[in-house]
């Protein structure tokens, strides 16, 4: 007698407990094994690209803050880079260095959340989250000192940054840079060699190298699959060609490698911060750009290495005070097209770990 079984469809609904935003996955399960998966998103669509067409170029900067809210500084950076390429504006030296300092601090802060919530999904009951949020709190204090806000900074402007850094910023940053490697070592001691973590993440959710290149993945997801590509080296923007840093890559493309790549990137960011602080010159922080920028007719694409991947802004101008077309190339939207291939064949408990390891932020996926 043959028992007939059939796969059933289950819904990881928009509100689920180990959540990274409102994201829905429709899975077809055969027992415990995932047979098919379909991501459904769009629950957080706010029409940012359309709203940007009704705001001036400077007024769009608060909008870009709200794209990937865990990494606002890099969003601002990418946008003002695109506008400066469109209008042909140069930026003073001190402003470039300040921008790099902010971007690297932001990279550390975003990776702290990514790794912390990933380890929480693996089951370590909130302990890594709380340790990493303590370090993120220190970074947010620094950002608060500079821009006045803790999450949506609105700090970079077309032609520089908004205000100069106060004089207690550099001593505080020096203290942070001195103690951060010690904290990263502590995270490693907590969970890097933990056997249960290794058993749950090594070999799980492999993204093969060819597939990663074919879907134009970027960021730690791509680098963990073995492709050594970083926009800061491949297409250097701002003054990144003056700093020495390594690009950590993984070999296997599984969840463990993505986790290790993010931790190593944090260490490299600390290295860049040290170099930027030593080389920081004096001078103006904002070049004289009129309040209502009128770029000439044309288009520009400005892209940077955001913590989650290659964030790009495509702007089309028609010589008015507002952009004619404002398009965001969201890295996480493009990275998550591989989710189905990564998840098929694994079990339900692994689905959450794989989903956590590609580190999406739904605000960026849905815009």
């Amino acid at each position, binding site marked *: 007698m043959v028992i007939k079984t059939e796969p059933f469809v289950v819904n990881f609904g928009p509100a689920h407990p180990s959540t990274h935003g409102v994201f829905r996955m429709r899975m077809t399960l055969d027992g415990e094994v995932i047979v098919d998966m379909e991501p459904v998103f769009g629950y957080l669509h706010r029409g940012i690209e359309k709203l940007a067409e009704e705001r001036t170029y400077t007024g769009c900067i608060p909008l870009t803050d709200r794209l990937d809210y865990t990494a606002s500084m890099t969003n601002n950076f990418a946008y003002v880079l695109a506008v400066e390429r469109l209008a042909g504006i140069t930026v003073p030296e001190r402003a470039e260095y300040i921008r790099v300092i902010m971007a690297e601090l932001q990279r550390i802060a975003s990776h702290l959340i990514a790794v912390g919530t990933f380890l929480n999904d693996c089951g370590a009951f909130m302990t890594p989250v709380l340790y990493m949020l303590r370090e993120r*709190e220190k970074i947010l204090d620094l950002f608060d*000192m500079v821009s*006045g*806000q803790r999450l949506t900074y609105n700090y970079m402007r077309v032609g520089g940054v908004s205000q100069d850094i106060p004089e*207690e910023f550099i001593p505080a940053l020096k203290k942070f840079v001195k103690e951060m490697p010690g904290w990263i070592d502590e995270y490693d001691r907590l969970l890097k*060699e933990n056997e249960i973590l290794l058993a749950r993440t090594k070999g799980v959710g492999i993204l093969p190298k060819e597939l990663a290149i074919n879907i134009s993945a970027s960021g730690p997801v791509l680098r963990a699959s073995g492709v050594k590509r970083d926009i800061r080296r491949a297409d250097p923007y701002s003054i990144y060609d003056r700093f020495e840093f390594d690009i950590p890559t993984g070999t296997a493309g599984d969840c463990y490698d993505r986790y290790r790549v993010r931790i190593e990137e944090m260490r490299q960011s600390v290295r860049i911060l040290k170099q930027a602080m030593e080389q920081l010159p004096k001078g103006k922080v904002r070049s004289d750009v009129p309040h209502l920028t009128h770029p000439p007719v044309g288009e520009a694409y400005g892209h940077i290495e955001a913590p989650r991947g290659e964030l790009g802004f495509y702007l089309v101008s028609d010589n008015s005070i507002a952009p004619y077309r404002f398009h965001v190339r969201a890295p996480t939207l493009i990275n998550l097209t591989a989710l189905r291939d990564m998840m098929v064949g694994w079990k339900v408990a692994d689905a959450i770990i794989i989903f956590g390891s590609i580190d999406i932020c739904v605000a960026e996926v849905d815009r």
Partner: protein
Amino acid sequence: MKFERFGIGIAKGLSVTLRHLLRIPVTTQYPEQRLTTSRRIRGNELIWDKEKCTGCATCAKSCPQGTIQIVTSVSAEENKYKVEKFEVDTGYCIFCGLCVEACPYEALFMGYAYERAKYRRSELVLAKEGLLASAERKPSGYFRPKIEASLPPQTLLLDGDRGKR
């Protein structure tokens, strides 16, 4: 998937957690303990200096949301604008600070206090008299270096633990 380190990895993790028992937690006991906020905080309100304002409406033009409403009338004997209506809907405002940056006469400030919640939404719409500075509505140093120099420095978590057991 083998047991790679025979339990040593777990033991290392346990030592980290144990060491935390000897550290002071970083929790701040609000509302008994309050930390000093940043000097440039873009707090919950806007503060307007009636004497310096000339009614040029640069702030209203630079607001991305269109929150500030200004109605002026021409006053012939003093040869300047008379501001009839200056209204800010702080419920709609996103506190980006672009208006403060735009004002050429330094007549607009962000708020310094952050505990200024109201019970009704209609109380969030601030008109001329509600926007003036007072003892509870202190201006913050965002984009105003003179005020920033007079405010106390920020408490930083980097400077040490800020919690008490």
